[in-house]
Each structure stands twice: as C-alpha cells, then as structure tokens.
C-alpha cells in the first residue's frame, strides 16, 4: 500500500478518508486536520491563554502535542480523580509528558479538595454511575481552574468517536437540551465561564492513537476501570460496525448534525445561567450548581451512614 501524498510505503490506512499515509505524511495530515478545525470553528487565537485538560490518555496528550507544535500558549490541567492505581498511572503519564517538554501543568487532586471527593466515593454515596459523577466533578474543576487562572479557553481532547457516541445517545433519548449544547465550541454563557472547545472533534479515535504512537507519546493504554459497561462504549461499538460497512459514517453523522440539525436545537435552548451557586459562586440554573448539589448529597449520605449502627454490631450472634 502506497502513501496517498508521496507514494512511499504506507504505515496507516484511513478508509473514511479513502487515503493511506507514510509516517511523515500522516503527521502532516493530522496536524492539518486539527488546524483546519481550529480555524473553521474560530476556536481560539495565538494571543489567548489555553488551558488543556489532560487525562494522561492518547487524545488529550496528542492534542497538547499538536498545540505546542503549532505555537499556542498552553497550560495543562490534570485532575486526580482518586480512581486507585489507574489515577496514579495516568497522573504519571501527564506529568512525564509535561516535564519532558518543559510545559506547565496544573494538578488538582480531588481527594485533597475535600473529604470524600474521589470519584468512587462520590459515585457510591450518590448511587450515580461513576462516569456521571466523574463528568460533573470534571466540569466543575475545569470551570473553576480556568476562571481562577485567568485562562481564555478550556480545551478537551474529545474526538470524533466521543462526539458520535454522545450524539447517538442524545438522539436515542431525544435529549433536546443536550443536543442544543453539543457543538465543538461552547461560548461562555456567564462572565465566570470561559469558552470551551474540542479541536479533535473530527479526528477519529484511531487517528489520535496513531498520531500519539508515531510521535512517541507515552500515554496510558489501559481503560478506566469504571468505564466497563458504560453506555458510551456500546454506542461506539455500534458506530464502529456501521463504519466498517460504510466508511465515513461517523464523520458524516457528526458533521451533518452540526450543519443541519444542531442549529435548530440551539435556537430552542438559548438560555443563560443567570444565577450564581449558593455553595461555590459559580454559574448555576438553580440555588446550587450540579457539583454542589452532588456534594450536598454526599455529605448527607456520609453523615447518615456514620450515624447508622454498623452491620457488625447488629449482626451479633444470638
């Protein structure tokens, strides 16, 4: 198989693009895809301060690598989610990436932010799926760190597969409010919010993994232990089966939604978070923001659990 650009031996084949590339040409292709997305969606400029949320995984580290290469002013943000050895290893990967390139990395360990703030504890006490609790906590700390640090833009490494799976989930349940906010650039709806962007939204998971591999990025390969059984993985599998039958399906699904469907949902849901949370002061639609509401539930249930007689006491032999 020959490289579509230079006719050298190809190392990667992309059926969705009807192309194949050797390593040097693939790196050019990938960077151009990201550059094009940034320009087409007017995501940010070189004068702005970018906060890049990094998990130690392939997507966020590949994104950070491309941005540095393109000359943007970036700072990494790593959130320690308290998911045992997985979190330790992912922290290590993010820290090594930053140190090797001399890049600034901010680290927030949730367990140090308050008692019981680790994802498994919060999920257990609130009986929410871990990914849901994790998402709420991430959004809160992304927002507060971006605000406190005076950043202009928050970037995440969500890729085409993430966006297609999310779109499928939103469509299957016709979650109109979620569909209204599913776009690669979210403008701030409150002075305490910053712009949120997803520069990899048209790059497939395979493409970001190939880029990370070719660039020698040492990322965490293992899956988050909490992701097992997550509905997003089911949607991804369905979409990948469709992609095999018809290459380019995921790209068309997301791109055409953004072009034709999303604007209609957005018009119906243009609302601002006018209030500020009574707990943390961040923008909120209710008295408490989603994060503080969840934290209140954690504290209430932890207190109830501590007050209840222990199982060992009540199970004493007759």
């Amino acid at each position, binding site marked *: 198989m020959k490289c579509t650009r230079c006719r050298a031996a190809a*190392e990667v084949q992309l059926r969705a693009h009807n192309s194949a590339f050797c390593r040097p040409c693939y790196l050019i292709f990938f960077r151009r895809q990201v550059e094009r997305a940034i320009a087409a969606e007017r995501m940010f400029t070189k004068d702005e301060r970018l906060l890049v*949320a990094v*998990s130690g995984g392939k*997507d966020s580290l590949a994104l950070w690598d491309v941005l540095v290469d393109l000359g943007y002013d970036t700072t990494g943000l790593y959130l320690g989610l308290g998911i045992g050895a997985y979190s330790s290893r992912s922290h290590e990967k993010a820290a090594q990436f930053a140190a090797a390139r001399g890049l600034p990395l901010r680290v927030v360990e949730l367990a140090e932010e308050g008692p019981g703030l680790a994802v498994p504890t919060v999920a257990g006490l609130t009986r929410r799926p871990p990914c849901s609790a994790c998402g709420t906590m991430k959004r809160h700390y992304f927002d507060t760190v971006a605000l406190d640090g005076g950043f202009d833009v928050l970037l995440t490494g969500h890729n085409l597969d993430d966006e297609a799976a999310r779109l499928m989930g939103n469509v299957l349940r016709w979650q109109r409010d979620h569909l209204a906010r599913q776009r690669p650039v979210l403008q701030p709806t409150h002075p305490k919010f910053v712009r949120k962007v997803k520069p990899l939204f048209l790059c497939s998971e*395979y493409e970001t993994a190939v880029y990370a*591999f*070719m660039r020698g990025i040492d990322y965490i390969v293992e899956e988050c232990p909490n*992701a097992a059984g997550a509905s997003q993985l089911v949607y991804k*599998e369905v979409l990948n089966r469709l992609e095999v039958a018809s290459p380019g399906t995921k790209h068309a699904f997301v791109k055409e939604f953004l072009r034709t469907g999303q604007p209609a949902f957005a018009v119906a849901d243009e609302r601002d978070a006018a209030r500020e949370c009574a707990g943390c002061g961040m923008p909120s639609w209710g008295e408490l923001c989603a994060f503080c509401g969840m934290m209140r539930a954690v504290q209430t249930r932890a207190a109830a659990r501590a007050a209840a007689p222990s199982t060992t006491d009540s199970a004493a032999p007759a």
Partner: protein
Amino acid sequence: MRVHLHPQRRTVDIEGRRRVGQLLSELGVLPGTAMVIRGDVLLTDAEMVEDAEEIEVRAVISGGSGA
C-alpha cells in the same frame, strides 16, 4: 506468531502466517478499533505477519465521561 493484546494484557499464539486484516477478524477486532504494531512500526490490514513474528494489537477505544 505471538500476539500481545492491550489493554487486556493477554497474549495468544496463533499458528501460521496471516494478513493483518484476517488476523484482526479472527481475533474479533473491528478494523479501525486497534493499532497493529510490529516493533516500532504500524501495520496496515494488507501487511503479512509471519509465523515467527511477534506483534501487539493495541485497542484505541476508550469510554466514560471523556477528557
């Protein structure tokens, strides 16, 4: 050939040479959901893997709440 599967951390031995595409199909891996790595090089589906070789099949799909 010896195939190391990641992130499952599983190794399987398979008899005989195969094209990458056929190997992935036998392993139940959908095209575009894993990188096939020999040494420090990626292999396309058309590439042949010889019986005596060792390769890594590294899944690229991740789930959860996203980065």
